[in-house]
């Protein structure tokens, strides 16, 4: 090969690297290892973690432990899905394109919106993008964030907005879901961002907010972090949301210690050309057969560069596929039932915990997660329960360390929890409180 290229050594091909910067010595990292050894090293690290399936598990706050059918993980590992690229060559990427089209349709149906894109990185970054989109649509630059929006989402929006010199109004923590966000909406506001079920587990009615927003020319951005809830709850679209953003992890995707996840992003159709991210659309080929392509890409960075609606390029393709397959296996009937099982388990658990002395469930209405007020700091309690082999939930102080809500614990319950799990939590909690 060198002969054909006409060089004596591979190093000649690196001649453009300044001589002083070309490394002479190997980089100070270990030499290559065989599969067996790599497996040993990583298995050792893995075994130092307590996996959700191995203990009674009630951790939520934006990521949820659900059972994903084996079919899903099998299918997404197929070579033709796993090792393909962004479908820029549609003639040999119809597999990817058709599932994206199915994904968009599913997300639109689930959220009650007109159109959905082909995914964002996750719910939090999607929320940031939604705010920027609202600014483009309204030509205003001020967002109002609910006090019960997931604090990480708040941070992501604030970071982005501050960098872009946009205004952000953040409401104070709203444990009870009763904040007066309406009073913040005026003609200067671009968008209001409200989560339901919110980070404290409250189910929120968005209709009044949507009405007030509309009245002032602002957009309502509805956020959810638990996609399963939409099997049982009114869709944000039906309550009047203009943009809906959600975390899709619950459907098809593992906990993965936080990622990769999949951001769901839907909007009213009049805003299509202001949407961020990829869109897959239907068309025909030269023989007149139906086919799918990426479309409206003049919104995107690779065409529009600094005028693009977003800088996003790589998204969450394979996580969309997992979402779509799981949702296809569920169907409306399965999703609704899954949601009922989740809610029923949470109701059961809430009643049990409410009976524990030193614990009080604060929520009136919730889906599969709620806030418990403890007689002791939640972080300590969680740590002591972890020592007993129970992962009890997320202390609010972990998300909002300075909010003075140290005794609050967020507890989630899904279809994976059994009576034994609940009994273990209650017993351990009684010992600790």
């Amino acid at each position: 090969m060198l002969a054909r290229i006409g060089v004596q050594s591979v190093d000649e091909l690196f001649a453009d690297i300044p001589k002083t910067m070309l490394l002479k010595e190997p980089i100070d990292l270990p030499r290559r290892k065989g599969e067996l050894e790599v497996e040993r090293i990583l298995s050792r690290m893995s075994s130092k973690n307590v996996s959700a399936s191995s203990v009674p598990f009630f951790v939520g706050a934006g990521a949820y432990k659900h059972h994903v059918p084996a079919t899903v993980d099998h299918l997404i590992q197929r070579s033709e899905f796993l090792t393909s690229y962004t479908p820029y060559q549609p003639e040999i990427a119809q597999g990817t394109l058709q599932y994206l089209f199915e994904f968009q349709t599913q997300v639109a149906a689930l959220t009650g919106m007109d159109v959905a894109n082909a995914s964002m990185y996750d719910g939090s970054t999607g929320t940031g993008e939604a705010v920027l989109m609202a600014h483009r649509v309204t030509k205003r630059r001020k967002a109002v964030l609910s006090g019960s929006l997931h604090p990480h989402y708040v941070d992501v929006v604030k970071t982005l907005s501050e960098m872009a010199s946009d205004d952000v109004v953040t409401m104070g923590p709203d444990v009870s879901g009763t904040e007066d966000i309406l009073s913040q909406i005026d003609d200067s506001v671009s968008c209001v961002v409200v989560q339901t079920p919110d980070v404290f587990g409250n189910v929120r009615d968005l209709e009044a907010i949507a009405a007030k927003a509309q009245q002032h020319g602002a957009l309502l951005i509805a956020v959810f972090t638990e996609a399963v809830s939409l099997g049982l709850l009114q869709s944000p679209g039906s309550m009047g949301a203009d943009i809906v953003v959600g975390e899709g992890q619950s459907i098809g995707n593992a906990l993965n210690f936080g990622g990769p996840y999949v951001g769901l992003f839907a909007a009213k159709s009049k805003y299509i050309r202001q949407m961020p991210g990829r869109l897959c659309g239907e068309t025909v080929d030269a023989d007149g057969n139906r086919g799918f392509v990426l479309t409206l890409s003049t919104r995107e960075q690779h065409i529009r560069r600094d005028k693009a609606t977003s800088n996003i390029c790589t998204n969450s393709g394979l996580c969309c596929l997992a979402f779509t397959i799981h949702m296809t296996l569920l169907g409306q009937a399965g999703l609704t039932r899954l949601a009922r099982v989740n809610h029923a388990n949470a109701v059961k658990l809430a009643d049990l915990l409410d009976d524990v002395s030193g614990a009080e469930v604060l929520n009136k209405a919730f889906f599969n997660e709620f806030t418990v007020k403890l007689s002791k700091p939640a972080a300590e309690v969680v740590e002591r329960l972890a020592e007993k082999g129970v992962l009890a939930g997320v202390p609010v102080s972990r998300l909002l360390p300075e909010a003075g809500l140290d005794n609050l614990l967020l507890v989630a319950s899904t279809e994976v929890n059994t009576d034994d799990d609940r009994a273990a939590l209650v017993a351990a909690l009684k010992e600790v409180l």
Partner: protein
Amino acid sequence: QIEPLLFEIGHTDVTGVDFDEPENFKPRLGGLERKDEIGLPGLSEPEAMRHYVRLSQMNYGIDTGLFPLGSCTMKHNARLNERMARLPGFSDVHPLQPVSTVQGALELMNELGRYLVTLTNMTTVALSPKAGAHGELCGMMAIKAAIEAKGEGKTRNVVLVPDSAHGTNPATAALIGFVVKPVPARDDGWVHVEDVKKLLGPDVAAIMLTNPNTCGLFENQVAEIAKAIHDAGAYFYCDGANFNAIVGKAKPGDLGVDAMHINLHKTFSTPHGGGGPGAGPVVLSARLAPFAPVPFVTLKDGEFTLLEHEDETAEKPFGRMTAFHGQMGMYVRALAYMLSHGSDGMKQASEDAVLNANYIRASLADLFSQPFGDKPCMHEVLFDDTWLKDTGVTTLDFAKAMIDEGYHPMTMYFPLVVHGAMLIEPTESESKASLDLFIATLRDLAMAAKKGDKDRFTGAPYHAPRRRLDETRAARSPVLKWTPPAPIAEAAE
């Protein structure tokens, strides 16, 4: 090979998942129960399996053939890495579990960070960005934060971006309010330090330079450019999309880089998955390190901890890029790749990638035109369409004809600085036999184009799951989701 949409074969009362209906319980949904139908059809498990298997069969992947997409780095995805990412201690742990129960996960993040910092000779790394463009955003935010910390936030608002850059570069800079100024292209494919100097001033915040660049060349004046940038009080952002050409050969930190994102899904072979997920950790120089966003992992007294809030540290994090801690699943795969290859193997991968690209270049140089002359390239080789002149065959036609030969096309029409660009990146995964076959096919096609066998190109692809698709129609009246066909009676009206 037409597969119906799931909506055309499914039914809303069919489900492939078996749960028992919960026993009697009183819902506590505050009167917000859904009243309308969702309208989501389901498929039984066998139907779903068949539907998605068939869809997959309309796709092309690295595992099915050579995938020479320049700038995209379609290299082999080892299944060991997939298996490791699915170990329960990585895939089945929650980001907000007590840190005492995820010490191994934090150790892995820490180790990945150590590898990235060592390979680049930088000071620290922000792991959390979710993809390359998100990493760019993170790096540019760090630069903006540093500028503001120096009190220059109002004055330094220009970012220099060469014309050959990825679209993400200008889009990222613009997203957070920078004004983008292009560095014009030269006819040798390199960015020239004098061109940069002409643009430098107290208003310049940074340059965003891709190196190796999208023309397949290593920026041979990078040291001088870095010095000029730094002398002007600005920062050097390096787009690390092409880092895979130089891992083990040179360290960006030695080249004067202040921030560089690393596409784990390119350089470290986490699968592209049809468009994601990726991961875009950003390495930062000492000047930018204090501004790295939360969260980050630290080791204290043998215990790993996670810093998740800005005020838990003496540093000056500019904020947070995403919920939780980033793309753990990709971290595991990337670290598995690094452990498998080791210091020696990663260097060899770079060398093999460059060798393979040059082998293709040398093997096609007599037929294809090289816009910047016949000189060595890095891991990808750039041709233009000069050689197609008067054949009636366009770059697009040529690419589509490759499909009929069983190959995925190369990257087309990028970079924009070249007319009818064809950017070929074979990666180190290909054997010589595989390259020889690919080269023979391209030569054969080139001859055919030159001989005037036009139909073979303009009508291509003929042998693919679809013939050429009408993208204009898709954009003109967008159909972005399936809608039920009107009942026949209605439709007939």
